[in-house]
């Protein structure tokens, strides 16, 4: 009886198991569209952090006076920065929408014995977001 052995594979011992462990590819996240969406969702956190940093720098330059703010704005006018900010904005939107849609799975509320429907929790998040955005916009555009 011939035995086919690959290099480095362990020899079979009668009555002993010899399991085969499949290697998980480094590119596992390219196999399925859903996995790719997941990895992009996770990567969007980098862009969220970037947005936070830019906002902090903006506020910091505001605090330093109108000259500092003008210099900041000029740096931001650079087409590369505009492109980067646009992409970041899209990722932050993606992050927000996926987060709000998933929130009801984590926050299960029971009102009077019955579970609050998922759509309601998601919607209330969106409404709060829009409300706060409206308030901030009113302040800025005044």
């Amino acid at each position, binding site marked *: 009886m011939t035995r086919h052995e690959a290099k480095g594979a362990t020899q079979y011992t*009668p*009555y002993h*198991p*010899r399991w085969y462990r499949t290697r998980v590819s480094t590119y596992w996240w390219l196999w399925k569209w859903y996995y790719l969406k997941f990895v992009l969702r996770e990567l969007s956190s980098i862009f969220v952090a970037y947005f936070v940093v830019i906002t902090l720098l903006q506020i910091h330059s505001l605090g330093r006076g109108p000259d500092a703010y003008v210099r900041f704005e000029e740096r931001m006018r650079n087409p590369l920065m505009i492109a980067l900010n646009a992409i970041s904005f899209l990722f932050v939107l993606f992050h927000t929408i996926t987060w709000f849609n998933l929130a009801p799975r984590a926050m299960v509320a029971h009102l009077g014995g019955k579970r609050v429907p998922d759509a309601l929790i998601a919607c209330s998040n969106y409404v709060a977001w829009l409300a706060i955005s409206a308030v901030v916009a009113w302040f800025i555009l005044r």
Partner: protein
Amino acid sequence: MDEDRRLKKQLLEKTEGREHIATIRDEMQKAIENGAGIYRTGTSLGDAAARLRQLQQRYTNTVLDDRGLTFNTELIAAMELGFMLDVAEAIVRCALHRTESRGAHQRTDFPKRDDEKFLVHSLVHRNADGSSRVEHLPVKITRWPPGERVYGEQTQAKDVQAGR
């Protein structure tokens, strides 16, 4: 250890043989379904018994596709088939012996329930020469005495009869 050796010789290492486990199992299922269903006759049971005897003979002539030592489900199936053939033989043998109808055993050639002869448990034994014999074990009635199985309007008549 002896059982281990017997199994290996009889099943794992055998190379001659022309029957497959699945074929015999299918035919056993058909034989019992046709011959020993809920409604059965002496003839149908006799046919089933002959068929099963044939199948038990063919079972000794089986060969396995799977000779592996790791998770060999065909070997398990082969062992179980041997036992299933024995159980099938027991079913048919007792059904032939019981010339009455009772519950799920409805002999269309003996439609009535016969409590004098057959209010017993049937036990099947294997004789030394390979044939089988049926013996009786008395039944101990505790809660439910035997009665007619009737449905619908007939239950009311039965209740009246029983004084309920």
